[in-house]
């Protein structure tokens, strides 16, 4: 079943595996199932790809390719039903918390209200944990076209910022630099040192617009519904 995946060298200590079979959902399932199957390696599964890191002093690319291919051969051909939890995320859109909302609306040919409605209209699925700091990276909202990254990245994006780029959406858990347009910000603490990411790939985030003066009422810690 080698046709499911393509494996490329990515430096002397990593390979990048790309799933090429089926639709986006299937490719995502494949790379995450592979990441689980090769637990002895450092792995970064995302949307349709999986970075596998290793110590080339003790193994090599060919051995890792063989292990990944063998794991791919063992994957079930039908999707595995995963438990998906729902997180409700209050967001103050626009203004100081979402300074790029007007820009994104203009780029998409939508009103600001329409951008907010689409971003909060349906739950967004977490596809992977990524930069910065294990941020939940989600499928983007149903926008008519991809959202360009900012020409000049910000040096400091506040924690809780809700951003979009391309056909992806994210919440920045920690203060960090970033080049994604900011639509808003949640008062929730997404993660901290004593509690790393509470979410996992496959979970869904429902964004809910709130008013700026409701910020304090919604302060707290991000948690799944029903515990």
């Amino acid at each position, binding site marked *: 079943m080698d046709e499911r995946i393509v494996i*490329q*060298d*990515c*430096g*002397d*200590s*990593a390979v*990048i595996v790309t799933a090429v079979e089926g639709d986006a959902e299937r490719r995502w399932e494949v790379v995450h199932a592979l*990441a689980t199957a090769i637990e002895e390696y*450092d*792995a*970064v*599964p*995302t*949307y*349709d*790809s*999986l*970075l596998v*890191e290793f110590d*080339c*002093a003790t193994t*090599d*690319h060919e051995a890792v390719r063989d292990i990944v291919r063998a794991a791919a051969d063992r994957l079930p051909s039908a999707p595995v039903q995963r438990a998906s939890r729902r997180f409700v995320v209050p967001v103050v859109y626009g203004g100081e918390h979402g300074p790029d909302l007007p820009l994104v609306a203009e780029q998409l040919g939508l009103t600001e209200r329409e951008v907010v409605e689409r971003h909060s209209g349906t739950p967004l699925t977490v596809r*992977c*944990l*990524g*930069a*910065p*700091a*294990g*941020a939940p*990276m989600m499928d983007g909202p149903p926008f008519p076209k*991809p959202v*360009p*990254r900012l*020409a*000049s*990245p910000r040096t400091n994006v506040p924690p809780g910022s809700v951003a979009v*780029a*391309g*056909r*992806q959406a994210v919440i920045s858990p*920690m*203060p*960090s630099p970033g*080049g994604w347009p900011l639509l808003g910000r949640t008062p929730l603490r997404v993660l901290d*040192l*004593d509690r*790393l*990411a509470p979410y996992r790939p496959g979970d869904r985030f429902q964004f809910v617009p709130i008013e700026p003066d409701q910020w304090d009422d919604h302060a707290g810690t991000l948690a799944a519904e029903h515990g």
Partner: protein
Amino acid sequence: MPAPWRPNMADTLTIEQSGNATVQDLGRSGAARHGLPVNGALDQYSARVANVLCGNDEHAPLVEITALDFAATPSADVLVAVTGAPADLTVGGVRHPRWEPVAVRRGETIRVTGIHRGLRVYLAVYGSVQAETLLGSCAPDTILGFGRSLRPGDDLALATHCPSIDHPVFRHPLFRMRPPVPRFGEPWTIDVTDGPELAEFGESAHRLVAENFTVTPRSNHIGLRLQGTVPQRVAHGEVLSRGVPVGAVEVPAGDELLVLHRGRGVTAGYPVLAVVTTASLSSLGQTRPGDTIRFRRRTVAEAVATHRAERTTIRALEGRVAAVFESLRLPVHTGRCARDRRRTASDRH
């Protein structure tokens, strides 16, 4: 691990002048699955050698000193080793060799000054220092806010009491371990292998190895930003975020190179033009703003061979250190971290 020598009176290393220093190790392996960067010593070779020279596990916590002068004083006799960029090392005011174990008597101040032709110096202490860990590593993560810079007055607890070294033989330059010392300073030659998206840069890709690049001041442990005549992407379209390795060379805005280092976010959405070799990442971690870098294209097989040769060198050094320490009845602690790195009570997770 045997019971501590003096359970209620841990020996300490007191920081007198902190400059810009942190407690480091080789990084947080396994963190990528949590979406967290590996972090750890930016010059892994120098960090490994410093620990090995002290008979420590190469993964043991040690002090990473960046650019500025540093001084610390132990509360008991200890053995230390200083590696990394060229600098002046004095103990109690007397100059001592770097890249060798050095006996320090209690109360004598260890000073590292005048760091040049490189940026980072590593100070390892026999038995290592104690440090809080996150996912098995003490490496600071500046984005998460884990770990912090050392401050004057900080006491680092030493993990092991060093057997008495108050013997005339230790007061002479005793050790000749002779680890290979890398070349520091300009011109830096940084080896790269082809990146998976090399083709997206068309003809301009060769500029990477044909041109000189200059390290800008906006460079840090997350990534180095380099100025020069950069390759231009000819392909179009947004790239879906995916995992990127430490060492990835990208051209995010089209006017400068971004070379990711150990603090890099694990995902990015830019094509990867090239990947710096593991061996050259140590050199890259030593470059200073304003330094000139020249990239050199290598095959993956050549890069792997270089990395393996470096590890073999370190294993051989471990053997020499173990033989010498044994003859001096100094227990070595090699291999201890492999056990300790499994979750310990002190880990936050």
